């Protein structure tokens, strides 16, 4: 079974991002970039499936400009076997990424695609579901446990009331939630090995899909700051404030 893992290059989760000075977007110049943390979890799960003898090959794919090769090298260092860059300088939104990954999934004959549940930059939480729709495959989002059986897959999902287990026919799309696993760190020897692993490039413009942006960002701004309040000295004072000042008791 071949497993495909789409990975996205995003501003590192430790970075406090700011709007551009003209408010037209997010300032990403000279910002440290990393693999989307949910995608790291997806890569880890795929690599574990290979280590368990369930997956035969793990292929990482990223869509974007040439710098996304760095992100793919990280996936290779974590244990992916091969990588594919779908290269374009167009700003890609979820639907466009889903269309591009669909082409790759079909070319590769992937049986399982594991995505991160959302990217921590645009927080859209769309690509996995859109990809499943376009492929006409089943989808198991927000996975906290994945068990592959013969021709099917059982996924425990994090839902609002607790947990839910779904059984999907393969091929299928899974999106990884936080508690699916703890991704490994790429070790130095594995980073060195990753440099020799195959990384192919496809031109997005040659894949015959419409990748034009569908949603236009008019402006990006900082939300109104919540002002800090006061420190109270005792429980009695807190109760009095909650009753008389805030009037919530």
């Amino acid at each position: 079974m071949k497993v495909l893992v789409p990975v996205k290059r995003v501003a590192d989760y430790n970075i406090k991002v700011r709007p551009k000075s003209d408010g037209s977007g997010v300032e990403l110049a000279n910002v440290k970039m990393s693999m989307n943390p949910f995608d790291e979890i997806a890569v880890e799960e795929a690599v574990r499936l290979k280590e368990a003898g369930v997956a035969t090959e793990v292929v990482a794919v990223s869509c974007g400009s040439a710098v996304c090769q760095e992100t793919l090298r990280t996936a290779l260092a974590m244990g992916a076997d091969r990588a594919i860059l779908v290269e374009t300088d167009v700003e890609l939104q979820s639907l466009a990424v889903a269309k591009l990954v669909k082409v790759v999934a079909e070319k590769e004959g992937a049986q399982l695609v594991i995505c991160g549940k959302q990217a921590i930059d645009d927080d859209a939480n769309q690509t996995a579901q859109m990809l499943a729709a376009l492929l006409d495959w089943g989808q198991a989002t927000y996975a906290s446990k994945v068990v592959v059986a013969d021709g099917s897959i059982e996924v425990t999902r994090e839902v609002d009331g607790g947990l839910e287990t779904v059984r999907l026919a393969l091929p299928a799309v899974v999106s990884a939630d936080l508690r699916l696993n703890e991704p490994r760190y790429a070790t130095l020897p594995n980073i060195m090995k990753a440099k020799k692993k195959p990384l192919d490039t496809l031109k997005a413009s040659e894949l015959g899909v419409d990748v034009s942006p569908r949603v236009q960002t008019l402006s990006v701004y900082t939300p109104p700051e919540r002002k800090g309040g006061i420190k109270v000295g005792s429980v009695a004072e807190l109760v009095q404030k909650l009753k008389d000042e805030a009037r919530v008791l």
Partner: protein
Amino acid sequence: MKSLIIAEQTGGQLSPMTGNLVAAASKIGGEIDLLLVGACGVAAAAESARAFPGVTRVLTSESAEYAGFTAENVAPLVVRLAGNGYTHVLAIASAAGKNLLPRVAALLDVGMVSEIVEVVDANTFVRPIYAGSLLAKVRCAERVRVLSVRATAFPAVAAGGSAAPIEVVAPSGERGKSKVIGQQLAQSTRPELTSARIIVSGGRGLGSAENFAGTIEPLADTLKAAVGASRAAVDSGYVSNELQVGQTGKIVAPELYVAVGISGAIQHLAGMKDSKVIVAINKDEEAPIFQIADYGLVGDLFQLVPELSRAIASA
């Protein structure tokens, strides 16, 4: 303008966030048709749903393939209905809504706007990005605007005084892609986290599952509050995942949020910073939670929280 809003129901009980969904659709204006699907209980939920002012019609479809509300089976129905001249399709950004809508959007070949917190006009919306540290104003002029709605950003419309007609629509059939085979849903007599008036949340500072139960729950009992938790508390196994408040858990905005032993990581703040009044109890006076708390109390939570329970009970 004509909106199709997808409400959720469980066993005939309408989701408490339906009023928030109607509120968001009302901001867009025009007709609002409310869709209810399920394997059972749909008629009972429709009786509640028809009472919302602003709802033009309630559409219902009850069929076995909607058990588990799987996106694979529900999306084709929504796509078919969307062809009836709807300009907008909306659902709450719940786990079920977030799972369903992108599938609908892709089948319609339209871009989608996630977790809107403001409707500027019929094509313009505001949504948080980067875990809520920034807001983006976006324009979506697709033929159908598919939108998920952050419930806390739209104060609920109260049901009552209205009786929209109910129409039954044909189901779309079993797609055979997926099946819900098990559920472990928390049984609780407490208010639901996302609609509670008061929430008491615990963090890593509680130290253990026993301490969490022994400290947080009595205060929640006294306040008739829902219980929440930080990601650290969930990851440490003190409580189960459905109680997590934060960017990747539940987004809440109660009248009173009491954060106990929670340092205030950005991803937690993203889930609760719109609460009306925030109280923080923490031993570390430098904890970031104090920067957004209206009332901060520095000290040992194992002394202060029981003392607070007693003081409120006797007040």
